[in-house]
C-alpha cells in the first residue's frame, strides 16, 4: 500500500438525499483519494493502485477507467503486458461490463504504438476462458470482432476453425454463427465460388443436425442475401424440412413460402402461410399479414 496521507479528500458539501448510496467507509475513502489524485492529474504508481482498488469494487466506474488510461500512458516504464493481464482478471470477475474490453483494445493500440507489433496469440487464452464461462458473452464476441478487423483476420483459417469448434459444442450458439459471418464477409471482399459452395455445404450440414435451429437458417439466408444468390436454389432443402409427415421446421416453411413468392407461385405461398398461422400460432397475425401482402 502506498502512502496517501498527503491527499486531501473533498466531501460533497450537501449530497443530494434522493437515492443516496450508503457507501462503506472503505469505498468512500478509496473514491475520495482517486478523485483527488484525478483532479491533480497525478500519474504515479500509487494513483494506478487506487484506480485498481476502485475498479475492483465498481467495475463500471468509467471515469476511473479513463483516468487509469491516462496514468498508464503517463508511466512509460509500466508494463503494458501486465496491464492486459490485470484486465483479464477484472473481466473474469465482471462478465457483463462495457468498459473492460474497450479499455483492452486501447491498451493494445498503445502497445502497437510503442512496439510496432503485438502478438495476437496472447489474447486467445483469456477469450477462451471468458467464453467458457458464457459462450454468448456479447462484449467478448464484440472484442473478438474488433481483433478480426484490427489485425485483418478475414477468412483466417484459425478464426474460422474456432467458430467451428464452438458450433460443434453448441450448434445454437448464434454469437458464433454471427462471428463466422463477419470473418467471411465483414470486409465485403468476394469469396471464390468454391469457398461459397463449401460454406453452403457447411451450414446445410448444420441444418441437418438441428433443423429447428433458427441460427443456421438465418445464416444460410444471410449468405444468399449477402452474395445476391438465388434463394430458389434452396428449394430442395426447404422442401425436405417442410414435410408434415416427417421432421419439419417452421424456418423451412418460411423459406419455402419465400421461394414460392419469388417464383410468383402465390397460391402455394399463401398455403404455407396458412399452415404457419396454425403451427406457429403466436405469430398468427404476422403470417396473415405476410400472406395478405402478396399481389396477384
Amino acid at each position: 500500500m502506498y502512502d496517501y496521507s498527503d491527499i486531501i479528500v473533498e466531501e460533497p458539501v450537501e449530497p443530494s438525499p434522493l437515492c443516496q448510496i450508503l457507501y462503506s467507509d472503505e469505498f468512500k475513502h478509496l473514491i475520495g483519494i482517486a478523485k483527488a489524485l484525478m483532479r491533480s492529474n497525478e500519474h504515479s504508481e500509487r494513483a494506478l493502485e487506487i484506480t485498481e482498488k476502485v475498479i475492483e469494487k465498481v467495475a463500471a466506474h468509467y471515469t476511473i477507467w479513463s483516468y487509469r488510461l491516462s496514468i498508464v500512458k503517463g508511466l512509460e516504464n509500466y508494463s503494458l503486458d501486465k496491464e492486459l493481464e490485470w484486465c483479464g482478471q477484472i473481466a473474469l470477475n465482471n462478465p457483463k461490463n462495457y468498459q473492460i474490453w474497450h479499455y483492452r483494445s486501447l491498451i493494445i493500440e498503445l502497445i502497437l504504438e510503442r512496439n510496432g507489433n503485438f502478438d495476437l496469440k496472447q489474447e486467445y487464452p483469456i477469450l477462451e476462458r471468458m467464453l467458457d464461462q458464457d459462450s454468448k458473452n456479447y462484449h467478448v464476441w464484440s472484442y473478438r470482432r474488433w481483433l478480426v478487423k484490427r489485425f485483418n483476420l478475414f477468412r483466417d483459417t484459425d478464426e474460422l476453425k474456432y467458430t467451428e469448434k464452438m458450433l460443434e459444442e453448441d450448434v445454437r450458439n448464434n454469437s458464433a454463427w454471427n462471428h463466422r459471418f463477419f470473418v467471411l464477409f465483414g470486409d465485403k471482399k468476394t469469396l471464390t465460388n468454391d469457398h461459397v459452395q463449401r460454406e453452403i455445404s457447411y451450414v446445410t450440414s448444420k441444418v441437418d443436425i438441428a433443423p429447428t435451429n433458427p441460427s443456421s437458417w438465418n445464416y444460410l439466408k444471410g449468405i444468399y442475401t449477402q452474395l445476391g444468390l438465388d434463394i430458389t436454389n434452396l428449394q430442395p432443402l426447404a422442401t425436405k424440412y417442410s414435410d408434415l409427415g416427417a421432421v419439419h421446421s417452421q424456418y423451412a416453411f418460411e423459406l419455402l413460402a419465400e421461394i414460392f413468392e419469388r417464383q410468383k407461385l402465390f397460391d402455394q405461398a399463401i398455403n404455407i402461410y396458412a399452415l404457419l398461422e396454425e403451427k406457429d400460432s403466436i405469430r398468427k397475425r404476422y403470417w396473415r399479414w405476410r400472406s395478405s401482402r402478396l399481389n396477384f
Partner: protein
Amino acid sequence: MAQRTLNYDKLQELFAASDQVDEFRIKEPASKTIESQMEVEMDILKIYEDILGQDKSQFPTLRSKSHSKYINAFLSRPLPAPFTALDASQPWIVYWLVNSKALLGEEIDPELSERVGYKILECVDAETGAIGGGSGQMAHLAATYAGLLALTVSKSYNAAAQLDRHKIYNWLLQMKQPDGSFIMHYNGEADTRAVYCAICVASLLDILDDKLAYKTIDWLASCQTYEGGFSGYPGDEAHGGYTFCAVAALSMLRSPTELPSVIDLDNLISWTVQRQYNVEGGLSGRTNKLVDGCYSHWAGGLTPLLEIATGQRDLLNRIQLQNYILCCCQDEPAGLRDKPSTRADFYHTNYVLCGLSMTQHYQEYKDGTYTGHRIADPSITDILDVNQVRSLDPIYGVPNGMASQMIALYRA
C-alpha cells in the same frame, strides 16, 4: 371480468400448443442452449399450469399497489451499500424509479420533482455541462440521457432550465465520430446506445442539427445484421437493446414511415417477431437466447414503430406477452423481474412496465409526435382497469406527451 377470461383463454391456447414445440427439438443434439431453454420453459409451464388450474377469476393482475410501494420505498430512503455497484449509474436509478412510478399512474409531486432536479444537477460535469454517473464523474451520454429523462418525467423544469445547452451541444460534437457514430464519453466506446442517447439528448434539448446528425443514418444502417436486427457496432450480433436504439434513433432522424428507404424493414420485422417465444409468450433479446422481461420493451417496444412503418397492427402478439408479464414477471412481494428464477430490480421494473404499456396501446404518428390510444378491442388485449398503465412514447421511453413538453420548454 370478461377480460380476465380473455387472458385465461389465450393462455390456455398457448399452453395447449406448447407440446408441439418439442416434437423435433428433443431429437437434436443436446447443448447448453437447449438445456437452459428447456429449464426455463419447464419453470414457466409449471406457473401457467397452476394458473390454468385455478378459477378464471384468480388470473393474475398487475399488483400496482405493491409495485408502487417498492418504488416509493427506494425514492424515500437511502440505498444500501450493495448499490455501490451502480455508483456510475445514478441518473439511471432515478429515471427507472420515477418512470415506473409515472407509468403506474402515480403523480410525481412538486417535492419529489425538486429532489429529482437537485439530484440530477448534482451529477452535472462542470467542464462539459453534460451529466455524469454521479457527482464528480465525467460526462457520459447514457447518464445524460437518463438524467434528462428523469427531469422530463418528474417535470423538473427549473432544474432543466439550468442545463447549459450550448456547452452540451459542443460536448456532443466532441463525442461525434467521423463515421457518424458517437462515443459514450472521452476515451469511451462507440455503439448504437451512444447514438440513440445522443440523438435523444439533442432532440430533447432542441439542439439537433445537420452537424450532429451527419452520416449517423448511414452508420446506424450499417449495424443491421444479416438476421434483420441491429448490433451495437457493425459486424456484431443482432440484439434487442441495440435494435431498439438503432430503430428509435432512425425514427427520430427520419420518421418511422421512411424506414424502408434506409434499412431492410422486412428483415427487421421478421427478426423482431421471432423474439417472441411459443411456450413463454415473452421475448428474448437474441436468436437462441432466453426470454427476459426487459425485452418486452427493447424488442417489444419496436412494435409501435413497425406498426406505423407498415400500417399493419399487431405484428407482435400483445396478449401473450401480457400473459408472460402478468404471470411470470411479478416478483414477491413486489417489483418486476426478468424471469421467474430471478429477483426484481429497478431496471426490470421499469422496462417490464414499458413493455406492458405497449401491449395496452396503439401509437398514432402525426406531424412528428406520437399519441397513445388505449386498445379497446377485447380480442387483442385486456381492457381491465386494474392492469392499466400509462401509454409510453415509443421513442423516449417516458409517458406520451412528456418529451414534447420538455422540448417546448427549451424552444420557448
